[in-house]
């Protein structure tokens, strides 16, 4: 069995103001994984990521990156990690090309090689035409992509993305995910935090949900989604429907006059549903599965954790 890309054991962090941000996090991310780290605001995700990239000093516990202990083999471990932080953290008065080349320098990559890599990643992230303009003038999406190029320049084996698509339009988001998926396929392990849960559902193979400094779920995406006992379908109608007839034996919600939502137990035959709808005079033009399945589970898990503080405290 290969060494885990990231192995966190009983990580705790109490800030000087007494806030206990991490309460014993243990986590394994296997090599090559695309791992989602989800949680509500203030759950401890950023403290966890800060601890992995040494910007936060843990109170106790250990972090190993590809087998290298961050406390005792700091330089080797850090050399394996690339980080795209949540907040912009580059010199806004420098040019993207210089920012990426300098970052390579901090990893000891010679300048000639750094220039080649900077061009490669700026091109891949569609930033080459802006490589020599002051980065302050870049759009929000470009700044995010610049941080990805910067994180990639030393070609890390583990890429950590902390809400990289926050505030980015859908087109740029898609191109960013295409890039990250490609490097994941090429062998880079990716850890992602995001508030766009459909992104995590589509991209990630394994998932951990953090709440109040604890892991409340850590499993494969497939396992997590299989916990859903109901499915939600969106029905686009042929003709407007002003009221929902009682004769249909399932719970229908009216979204607008030509759209209904229906929750059905998993595995239900849909022929019966269509027969009931037809007999009620409702004709369906098309049907799609609602894509917020992870969101429902996420909210359920967080809600459960927050209503059971005693159980959580004992964990």
């Amino acid at each position, binding site marked *: 069995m290969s060494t885990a890309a990231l192995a966190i054991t009983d990580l705790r962090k109490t800030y000087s103001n007494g806030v206990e941000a991490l309460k014993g996090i243990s986590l394994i991310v296997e090599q090559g994984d695309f791992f989602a780290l989800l949680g509500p605001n203030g759950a401890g995700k950023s403290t966890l990521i800060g601890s992995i990239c040494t*910007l936060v000093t843990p109170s106790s516990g250990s972090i190993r990156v590809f087998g290298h202990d961050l406390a005792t083999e*700091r330089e080797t471990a850090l050399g394996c990690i690339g980080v795209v932080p949540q907040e912009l953290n580059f*010199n806004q008065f420098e040019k993207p090309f210089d920012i990426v080349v*300098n970052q390579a*320098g*901090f*990893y*000891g990559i*010679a*300048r000639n090689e750094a220039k080649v890599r900077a061009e490669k990643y700026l091109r891949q992230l569609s930033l080459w035409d802006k490589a020599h303009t002051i980065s302050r003038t870049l759009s929000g999406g470009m700044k995010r992509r610049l941080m990805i190029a910067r994180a990639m320049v030393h070609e890390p084996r583990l890429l950590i993305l902390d809400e990289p698509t926050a505030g980015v339009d859908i087109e740029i988001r898609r191109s960013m995910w295409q890039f990250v998926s490609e490097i994941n396929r090429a062998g880079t392990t990716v850890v992602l935090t995001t508030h766009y849960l459909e992104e995590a559902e589509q991209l990630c193979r394994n998932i951990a949900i953090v709440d109040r400094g604890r892991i409340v779920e850590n499993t494969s995406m497939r396992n997590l989604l299989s916990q859903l006992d109901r499915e939600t379908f969106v029905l686009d109608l042929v003709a407007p429907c002003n009221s929902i007839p009682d004769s249909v034996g399932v719970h229908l919600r009216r979204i607008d006059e030509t759209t209904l939502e229906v929750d059905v137990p998993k595995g239900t035959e849909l022929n019966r549903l269509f027969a009931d709808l037809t007999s009620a005079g409702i004709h369906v033009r098309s049907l799609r599965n609602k894509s917020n399945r992870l969101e429902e589970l996420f909210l359920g898990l967080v809600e459960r954790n927050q209503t059971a503080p005693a159980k959580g405290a004992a964990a």
Partner: protein
Amino acid sequence: MNAAGNWVALKTIAGREVHRILRIWGQTLVPPAITMTLYFVIFGKMIGGRIGAMDGFPYIDFIVPGLIMMSVIQNSYGNIVSSFFGSKFQRYVEEMLVAPTPNWVILTGYVAGAVLRGLMVGAIVLAVAMCFTSVRLHHPLITLATLLLTAVVFAFAGFINAMYARKFDDIAIVPTFVLTPLTYLGGVFYSVGLLPPFWEYVSHFNPILYMVSAFRYGLLGVSDVAIGTAMSLMLVFAILLGAFCMHLLRRGTGLRS
């Protein structure tokens, strides 16, 4: 990282500092030239002519070493404090903190940038001085050693200020309320031998007196203090402040939570 990697990282940090100094030359290199020209015109030519000789030298010759030293002190300190605090404020210091760059490389890179700015400005002030008087060089080695040690000491001091600073006010307080008074009272414009015995004694607690005096010895061959004492003190200050900078970096003061 290996030695070659550390060398690349060091060149990257120092190179970025030099690039910054040259990019904003209107803020970094021009103001000292203007200020020092005014000092030479007003104190050297207009008032100095009436003061007469000081320690056996025309007054304008006497103040040249002090004014060069004042520029080196202010600029090496000012460069590192504004640059490092700026990197904290804009958070791009994290670029280095998340990389395997050792702490000593980060410190050396920033200090190299500060020393270079101190030397650049020192050279500019020297060039300005040469427009007003002929500059002698009594002891080149002591001149160079004093210049470098002073720049290093104040680069370390500025780095410590930047590590603790949380807002821009914090990087203005020390230069305004500590550095400037100590520099002016450190024998830039006068020989401390002119002071009453009590104040002459008190002046010897001012570290800048030793730097200015050693540099004046290097250029003119006269000094208010023993050269051996001055050089030893500067060396001790450099070692102590450098060690404290490394301690703060290891602890992550102001950088890591």
